[in-house]
């Protein structure tokens, strides 16, 4: 009998008056879903939180799959009388979050057998989250999942599971092959080793977006971001522009909000000043049938993003304004290695890459890694007169 069947057998008799209130209303409810799984202990713990207005979960201890030191988030309640251990398995998602249904169904079966049957597509980092596995079931659960080619994702101070936008799979804006880059990086043995055996100062997140629209929110959530971009001129189909205008689109207004002041619309023709265009995608997104990025494409590499942290949030800034990409993306991998090595050596515990760079100084990081300084890294060069000279740079 699978765990879920066992759970369902213990009919849900537990009273959850507060959760029931939350369940009401038109939006599909997590409470309903938990009820569907028959996972009574979780329901009770959750109801208790609503009643007490504090969580009833505590640290989860050290749990995991032998050979892996990551991918399982330990979780225990503070009410062992109700439910004791309720860990999470993080599974690496398929690129772009595309699923064949048979793969999904098999995953459901395995999860019903060993876990709660409760799932999350997806966690905010992008992994599949399987919520609620008792300690003893971790090994058999993953044994079967692995057979179906579901690997554990990241957790702790490691190379976190990357993610990528839908890109070339269904978006005309994609200037890099987001899915293929993802696949290549996420099957690289060294990266997987860095993912499954945490040894870095803290987590390292990587996201890939096909264009500066950044639908994968890399700039806000990842230490390292690849964003597709073009270098040559934007392609403008004047007839299609005209059609948009005739259809009532206020192109003058769009031009007025172009951040590069690069659009000129005279009512007939749209002129793009390609030198000043900031590749922001605004006009292209407004007129997808008329405007398209140029053909000389590559990636901008951003560095240093992270939420909150010790100093408050940082957002990603361009380390490399333009890099040509070609499978198997060795130049990207090299860059990752250079940076993570530097960070591994210099970072303090619980210090994200951007924070280490901040503490030590971008300039020093560049000198030590051999990466090139570039005006695009900064909004403007420094405004304070506080910098250092290395011995040899000044006269004795």
């Amino acid at each position, binding site marked *: 009998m699978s765990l879920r069947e066992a759970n369902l057998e213990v009919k849900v008799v537990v009273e959850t008056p507060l959760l029931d*209130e939350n369940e009401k*209303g038109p*939006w*599909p*409810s*997590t409470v309903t879903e938990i009820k*569907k*799984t028959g996972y009574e202990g979780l329901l009770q713990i*959750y109801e208790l939180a*609503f009643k*007490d*207005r504090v*969580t009833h*979960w*505590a640290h989860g201890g050290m749990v995991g799959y032998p*050979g892996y030191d990551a991918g399982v988030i330990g*979780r225990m309640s503070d009410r062992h009388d109700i439910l004791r251990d309720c860990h999470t398995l993080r599974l*690496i998602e*398929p690129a*772009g979050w*595309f*699923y*064949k*249904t048979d793969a999904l*169904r098999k995953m459901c079966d395995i999860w019903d057998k060993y876990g709660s049957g*409760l*799932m*999350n*597509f997806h*966690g905010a980092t*992008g992994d599949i989250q399987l919520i609620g596995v008792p300690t003893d079931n971790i090994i058999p659960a993953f044994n079967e999942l*692995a057979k179906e*080619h579901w*690997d554990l994702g990241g957790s702790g101070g490691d190379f976190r599971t990357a993610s990528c936008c*839908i890109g*070339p*799979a*269904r*978006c*005309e804006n994609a200037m890099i092959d987001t899915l293929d880059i993802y*696949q290549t990086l*996420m099957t690289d*043995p060294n990266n*997987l080793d860095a993912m499954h055996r945490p040894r870095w100062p803290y987590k390292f997140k990587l996201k890939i977006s096909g264009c500066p*629209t*950044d639908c994968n*929110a890399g*700039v*806000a*959530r990842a230490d390292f971001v690849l964003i597709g971009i073009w270098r040559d001129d934007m392609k403008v189909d004047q007839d299609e522009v005209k059609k948009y205008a005739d259809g009532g689109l206020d192109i003058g207004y769009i031009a007025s*909000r172009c951040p590069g002041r690069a659009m000129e619309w005279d009512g007939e023709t749209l002129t793009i000043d390609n030198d000043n265009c*900031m590749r922001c*995608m*605004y006009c292209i997104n*407004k007129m997808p049938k008329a405007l398209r990025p140029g053909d000389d494409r590559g990636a901008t590499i951003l560095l240093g993003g992270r*939420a*909150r942290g010790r100093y408050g*949030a940082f957002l990603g800034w361009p380390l490399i304004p333009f890099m040509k990409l070609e499978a198997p993306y060795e130049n990207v991998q090299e860059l990752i290695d250079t940076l993570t090595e530097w960070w591994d050596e210099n970072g303090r*515990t*619980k210090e994200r890459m951007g924070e280490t760079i901040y503490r030590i100084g971008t300039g020093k990081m560049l000198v030590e890694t051999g990466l090139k300084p570039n005006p695009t890294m900064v909004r403007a060069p420094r405004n304070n007169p506080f910098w250092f000279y290395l011995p040899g740079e000044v006269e004795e």
Partner: protein
Amino acid sequence: MPMDELDFGPPDYKDMLPDYISKNYGKWKCHELLEPGVFKHVSETGDEVYTVRTGAPKFIASQTVREICDIADEYCGGCVRFTAKHSIEFMTPEKDNVEKIKEAVGKLGLPVGGTGNAMHSIVTCTGWVHCHTPATDSPGIAKAVYDELLPYFQRDDLPARVNIAVSGCLNMCGAVHCSDIALLGMHRVPPKVNDDVVSTACEVPSLIAACPTYAIKPKMLKQEDGTMKKSIQIDAPKCMYCGICYGICPGVPLADAKNDGVSVWVGGKVSSTRGGPAFSRLVIPFLPNNAPRWPEVVDTVKKIVDVWAAEAKPDERMGEWIERIGWKAFFDKMGFEFTEKHVDDYIFSVRDMNWGARLKGTELK
């Protein structure tokens, strides 16, 4: 599993793509939003693909996943996809399937929408459902907000998209910090030190080093048997309740039924379009944790969206609108109080001061 069979990574995406995607991979020409929740993408091959996007609950039972698969099997060539914001996408090369998919997902209770100039799916963390650090229940709040704002999910005629995110605590797992509207659980009292746990389960020096405000000091306790026990004490006025210490030590929990609650932030943005990415900014430091429906939070979100929807110009995201009218006007229109807590006093604060004498007319009146 044998060691040498570990570390295999994700399944190959090529095996996960349906034909109608593989054939047109990298060949997309343009797209169109046909109606709220429904896209048409056109390929250079002439192919068309229709996508129906729906919302989803934060957690899904395997049972529901199977029902989703049923729909995907019937209309979508056995493929389903989730978005970067955890919506569900049902794709089909056949236009006729669109209505059928809409009907089928309707039966499952999955609302169609969240596209274009709509409220998109709310990103939220696990909160009280599964996490040990929350100051509030993010999935519960998200549900209450969704119920109230469903109409905004189902239209696409707002001035721009509005992204809402909820995180249960400052770890910000929902990455709320760049959202049009962010709801963030806040503790408001320092951790309560449990000396027994600290001395047995935690590394005191790392704990001390972890605190960004140097509020943690070592403490030695004489035990009954005369030996000394190493624990810590917290200098309360220096503590800003960030919870970083609790992240590494179970002996310093912050949860507090009376003082935990929700803060509201607005005006953030991720994309590099127009003015580029921007942080969400504090507008309400504290609303009570009024489970099960958080009416104060829901009303606040509704009000913010309503005023913005009525007043913003086209393509003005929340923050862009506020930038135009000014923060004073925003606080006035919303009836929110601007307090000393709204003025940054952390490391980079100086750079957020309003340098110069550049005041809007409304700010001088």
